[in-house]
C-alpha cells in the first residue's frame, strides 16, 4: 500500500498546488510533500518487512494490472528521486519565479511519474509512466527555459519520443510472445525463451530508448543544448533523475529479458560508452559555457556507468548503483552552484567570470568540494562508485579499465579548469557586487555535500541495500553464454 502512497503524494499535492495563489505557500507545500515522500521512501528502504506491493486489475481484456512493487534496484532509484526532489524544490525557494503554482505542480507531476517508472511491475505501466515523465518536464523546459528553448525543447521531445516508440514496439513484440493469455508482466517477460537471433535485433529496439535517455554516445546530441537552456530545476531533474531512468530501464528490460542480445552487443556498447567517456571529457575541456561543460561532464560520468552496466559483474553493478546515487547528488549540487553563479554574475560564460572567490569565499569552498566529489576524490561518494566501476571494468579487460579511468584524469582537467576560471584569478571590475551565500543556499548545499562525504566515508548501507538484486543480476548472463557461439559475431 505504501508504494501507492509514495506514487500519489506528489501527484495529489501537485493538483492542489494548481489552486493556490501564494508563491511561498506553494513552495512550502511542494517541499512538505517531497519531504513526506522522502520519509516514506526511507521507511521502505530501511524496513525489515517483506517488500510492499500494490496491484489492482486495470485493463482486463489485455490482462494488464496496475501493479506496483520494488526491489533493490528500484529502491536505489526511488531513494535517489525522493532524496533529490526536496533539494530540487528548495532550489526555487526565496527566488522570484513566474507562475509558481504551475511550475511546482509540474515538478511534482514529474516526480510522481518518475516514481511510477521505478515502481511499475509490468512493461505496459512502465511505458506509460516513462512517457508521462516527459510531458510535465517538456512544459517545465518550454515555459521556464532559456534562450532558444522552443527549438531545443522540440528536439529533445521528438528525440526521446522517437526512442520511446521503439521501446513501445519492443514491448508489444514481447507481449505477443508471451504464452497463453498475453501479459506484460516483467516476471513473465523474463521467463520468455526468446531465440538468440531474435534477441540480437530486439536488443537495439529496446536499448535505443534507454540509450537516448541516458544518453550514450552517439545518441547524446540533444543533451548539451537542452541542459544549457533548461531552467535549473528542470536540468536538475534531467541530469539527476531522468538519466538514471534510462539506466533503470536498461537494467529492467535488457538483462533479464534478452540476455543473449546483451551478451552479443556487450562489447559494442561498452566501447561506445568508453568513446563517450573520452569524447565528452575532451569536449568539456574547451567549453566556455559552464552549463554546457557540466552537461558534457555528466555525459562522461553517465557513459562510464553505462559501460559498468554492460560489464555486468558484481563490482561493476555495485559501483553502478552506488554511482547512480552519488552522481545524482553531485550533479544536483553542481547545478545549484551553477545557478548561484549565474544569479550573481548574470552570465554562464567562463571568460566573463573570475575572481569570485575573493568576493564569495564560502561559495568557492563549497563549489570546490562539489567539484572534488565530481572528480572522484577519495572520501567522496564519487570515488567509491568509480573505484568499484573501474574494478568491474578491469575484471572484463584492463583496457576498459584504463579508458574508463581516464574520467578521473580528464575530469580533473576540465573541472578544475572550470573552477579556476570561475572562482580564481583577479577580481573583475564588472563583478564587484557579488555577495556570498545566503541562508537558503547553505540549507541546500550543506546537506548535499554532507551526503557526498558521508557516502564516501561510509558507503556500506547502500551496498547492503542493493546486495540482493546485484546478486540476481550478475548471474543473468551466465546461462546464455553457451548460446552465443552459434551466432555470427
Amino acid at each position, binding site marked *: 500500500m505504501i508504494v501507492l502512497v509514495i506514487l500519489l503524494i506528489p501527484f495529489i499535492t501537485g493538483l492542489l498546488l494548481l489552486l493556490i495563489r501564494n508563491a511561498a505557500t506553494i513552495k512550502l507545500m511542494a517541499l512538505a510533500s517531497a519531504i513526506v515522500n522522502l520519509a516514506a521512501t526511507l521507511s521502505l528502504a530501511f524496513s525489515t518487512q517483506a517488500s510492499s506491493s500494490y496491484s489492482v486489475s486495470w485493463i482486463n481484456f489485455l490482462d494488464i494490472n496496475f501493479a506496483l512493487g520494488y526491489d533493490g534496484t528500484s529502491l536505489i532509484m526511488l531513494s535517489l528521486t525522493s532524496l533529490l526532489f526536496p533539494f530540487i524544490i528548495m532550489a526555487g525557494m526565496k527566488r522570484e519565479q513566474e507562475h509558481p503554482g504551475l511550475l511546482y505542480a509540474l515538478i511534482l507531476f514529474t516526480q510522481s511519474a518518475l516514481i511510477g517508472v521505478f515502481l511499475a511491475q509490468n512493461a505496459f505501466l512502465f511505458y506509460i509512466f516513462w512517457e508521462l515523465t516527459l510531458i510535465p518536464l517538456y512544459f517545465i523546459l518550454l515555459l521556464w527555459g532559456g534562450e532558444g528553448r522552443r527549438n531545443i525543447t522540440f528536439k529533445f521531445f521528438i528525440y526521446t519520443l522517437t526512442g520511446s516508440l521503439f521501446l513501445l514496439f519492443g514491448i508489444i513484440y514481447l507481449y505477443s510472445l508471451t504464452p497463453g493469455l498475453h501479459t506484460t508482466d516483467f516476471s513473465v517477460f523474463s521467463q520468455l525463451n526468446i531465440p538468440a537471433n531474435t534477441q540480437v535485433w530486439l536488443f537495439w529496439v529496446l536499448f535505443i530508448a534507454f540509450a537516448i535517455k541516458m544518453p550514450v554516445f552517439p545518441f547524446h*546530441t540533444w543533451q548539451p543544448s537542452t541542459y544549457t537552456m533548461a531552467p535549473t530545476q528542470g536540468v536538475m531533474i534531467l541530469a539527476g533523475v531522468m538519466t538514471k531512468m534510462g539506466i533503470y530501464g536498461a537494467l529492467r528490460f535488457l538483462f533479464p529479458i534478452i540476455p543473449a542480445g546483451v551478451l552479443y552487443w556487450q562489447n559494442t556498447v561498452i566501447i561506445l560508452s568508453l568513446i563517450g567517456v573520452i569524447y565528452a571529457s*575532451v*569536449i568539456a*575541456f574547451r567549453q566556455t559555457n559552464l552549463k554546457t561543460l557540466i552537461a558534457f561532464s555528466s555525459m562522461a560520468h553517465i557513459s562510464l556507468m553505462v559501460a559498468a552496466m554492460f560489464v555486468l559483474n558484481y563490482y561493476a553493478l555495485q559501483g553502478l548503483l552506488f554511482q547512480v546515487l552519488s552522481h545524482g547528488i553531485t550533479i544536483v549540487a553542481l547545478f545549484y552552484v551553477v545557478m548561484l553563479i549565474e544569479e550573481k554574475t548574470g552570465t554562464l560564460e567562463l571568460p566573463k567570470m573570475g575572481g569570485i572567490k575573493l568576493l564569495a569565499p564560502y561559495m568557492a569552498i563549497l563549489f570546490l568540494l562539489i567539484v572534488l566529489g565530481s572528480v572522484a576524490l577519495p572520501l567522496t561518494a564519487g570515488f567509491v562508485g568509480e573505484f568499484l566501476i573501474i574494478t568491474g571494468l578491469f575484471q572484463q579487460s584492463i583496457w576498459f579499465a584504463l579508458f574508463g*579511468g581516464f574520467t578521473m584524469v580528464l575530469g580533473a582537467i576540465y573541472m*578544475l579548469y572550470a573552477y579556476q576560471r570561475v572562482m580564481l584569478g583577479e577580481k573583475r571590475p564588472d563583478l564587484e557586487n557579488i555577495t556570498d551565500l545566503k541562508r537558503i543556499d547553505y540549507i541546500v548545499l550543506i546537506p548535499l555535500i554532507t551526503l557526498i562525504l558521508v557516502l564516501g566515508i*561510509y558507503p556500506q548501507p547502500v551496498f547492503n541495500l542493493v546486495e540482493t538484486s546485484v546478486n540476481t543480476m550478475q548471474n543473468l548472463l551466465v546461462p546464455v553464454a553457451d548460446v552465443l557461439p552459434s551466432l555470427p559475431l
Partner: protein
Amino acid sequence: MVEQIPNINLAWLVPAFPLLGFLVTGLANRKLKHNQAGIIASAMVLLSFLVSVVLFFILRASGQNEATVTLFNWISISGMNIPFALLIDHLSLTMMLIVTGVGALIHIYSIGYMHDDERVNSFFAQMNLFTFSMLLLVMGANYLVLFIGWEGVGLCSYLLIGFWFKNPEYNYAARKAFVMNRIGDLGFILGIILLFFTFKTVTFSEIFVQASGFQVGAPVITLITILLLVGAVGKSAQIPLFTWLPDAMAGPTPVSALIHAATMVTAGIYMIARSSILYNLAPLTLNIIIVIGLATAIIAALIGLKQNDIKKVLAYSTVSQLGYMFLALGLGAYSAGVFHVTTHSFFKALLFLGAGSVIHAMGGEQDIRKMGGLRKKMPLTYFTFLAATLAISGIPPFSGFFSKDLILSKAFEHSIILYILALGGALITCFYMFRLLYLVFFGEQRLAGAHPHEAPKVMTIPLIILSVLSVFGGFLNIPSLFNGDSEFITFLQTAVVSKASEELSHSTEIGLILGSLLLLGLVIFLAYRTFVSKSIIPAKDGEPMPFFSKLIANRFYIDEMYTTVFEKPFGYLSDFFYNKVENSLLDPVVDEIGFTTSRVGTLLRKLQQGNMSFYLFAMVAGILLFIIFILIV
C-alpha cells in the same frame, strides 16, 4: 594471531589531531585572529608528533613489529573487504615521525612566514588537511587507504600551490600538479585493482604473505609493480612526470618545504618501499626504476645548474634527490631509499625554510642574481643554510653523507657505470648547491633598496632544530665501516625487505669515499672560484648563451615539448570533437533526420494541390492497388 598491543589504538589520534585542526581552523576561519590559527594548527601537528613518539615506544615495549588498528569497514561487499585500518610498523612509524616532526617545525615556521597574509587561517587549515592526508598515506594498512591519503595530499598540494589564487600562473601550476599526479594516480589505482584481483585483498600484510607464492618475474607481479610505479613516478616527480614540481614552487615557501620537499613527494618512495616484497619479485620493474631514477637524478641536476630562481634550484635539486631515492629502490636497497628520505626531509626542509627566510628578508625577491652578501645580514640563516648545503652535497659527517654514500655504494655493488653516473650527479648537485650558496650569501648585495634582516624567532628556531637534524641525522645509521651497526636499516628491516647483497669490503668503501670526497672538494673549490673569486653572475634572461647552457637553462625544453605534444593537441582535439564531430557530424545527422521528415512533407504537400479530380484519381488508384494486392496475396 598476535595479541593486541595495549594502547596501540591511540594510533587513530595521530591523523585525528590534524583533522581536528583542519576542521577548527577551517570552520572558524573568520573568527580566528592573528596567530591563533597558526598556533592551533602547529599544536595539533605537535600533538600528533607526540602521539607518534608514544606509539614508537609502545611498539618497542611490546616487542612486536607491527600492529593494525581497524577503525571501521569502509567497503565491505562480497569478495571485497576494505577496512579503514591503520598500520603501525617501523616503516610507517618512521614516516609518521618525519611527517609530524618536520611538519610541526614547518607549521611553526609558517606562523612567522605567513604572518602578514590575509588568508593565513585558510593556509593553516590546508596545511593541517595536508598533514592529515599524509598521515593517512603513511599509516594506511591497505592500498586503498593509502590511496585516500595519496589523493588527499594531491588535493592539498593543488590548494596550496594555488594558494595565492589571484595569479593565473600559480593556478596553472596548481592545476598542472594535480593533473600530472592524477595521471600517475590512474596507473596507481589500476595497479591496486590488479592487486585486488590477484590477491583478493588490498591489505598489505595479507598481500605480502601471499606474494611468496609467486615466482620471481611473474608477469602479473611485473604488471602490478609497473602500474604502481606509474603512480609513484607521478607523485615523486620522476621522468617523465616531473615538470609539475618546479612549477609547484608557486606556492608559499613553507608549502614547498613541507609538501614538495620533505613529505609528499617522498610518498612514491614510501609506497615502493612498502611494496618491497612485490618489487623484489619483479626485476624488470626494478631495472626500470633504476633507469628512471638515474635519469631523473642527472637531468634534474643538470637543469639545476642554470636556474636563477632560488626556489627553482631547490626544486630541481629535490627532483634530483628523489631520483637518487629511486635509484636506491631500483637497486633493491629500499631501506637506503627510506633513509635518504629521512635525511633529505631534514636538509631539504631546512633549505627551503632558509630560502623562505631569504625571500622574506628580500621582500619577496627570488632571483639569486639580485641577492648576495646576505652572510653578514643573516648569519643564522647563513649557517643553517650552509649546514644543509653540506649535508645535501654529501660531506661527512653531515647526514646527507651517510644516506647518499649508502646509495652510491649500493650502486657500486650493482655496476661501476651506475656508480660513476650517480657520482657525477652528486658532483653536479654539489656544484649547483654551492653556486646557490655563494650567489646568495657571498659577495656584495646586488639589489638596491632592500634591507635584509634576520627573521623572527618563530622562524629561526625551526631552522636551528632542522639544522641540528641535518647535521646529526646521519648518525641514525652509522655503517659498520665506522663501527656502527646500521641501526636505521636494521630498524626498518622488519617492514621492508631489501634485496640481499654482499657487503663491500671496508677497504673498497674507504677508497670510494675518499675518491668522492676529493672530487667534491674540487667541485666546491671550482664553485668558489667561479662565483666568489671571479664574482661571475649568471647571465640575464635573453642573453645569448652557448647551445648546451641554453638547453639546460630552458630545462631541455621539456615543458615546451609537453605543451606542444600533449596540451595543445588536447585543445585541438577538443575543438575538433566539438566543432567537427559534434556540431558538424553527429548533431547535424540527427537534425537532418528531422529536416528530411519535414522536407518529405513539403514534397508530399505538392500532391495536395487541392484538385478534386486528382484526389479522385488517387482514390481510385488506391482502391485498385488495394484490390490487386488482395488478389495477389
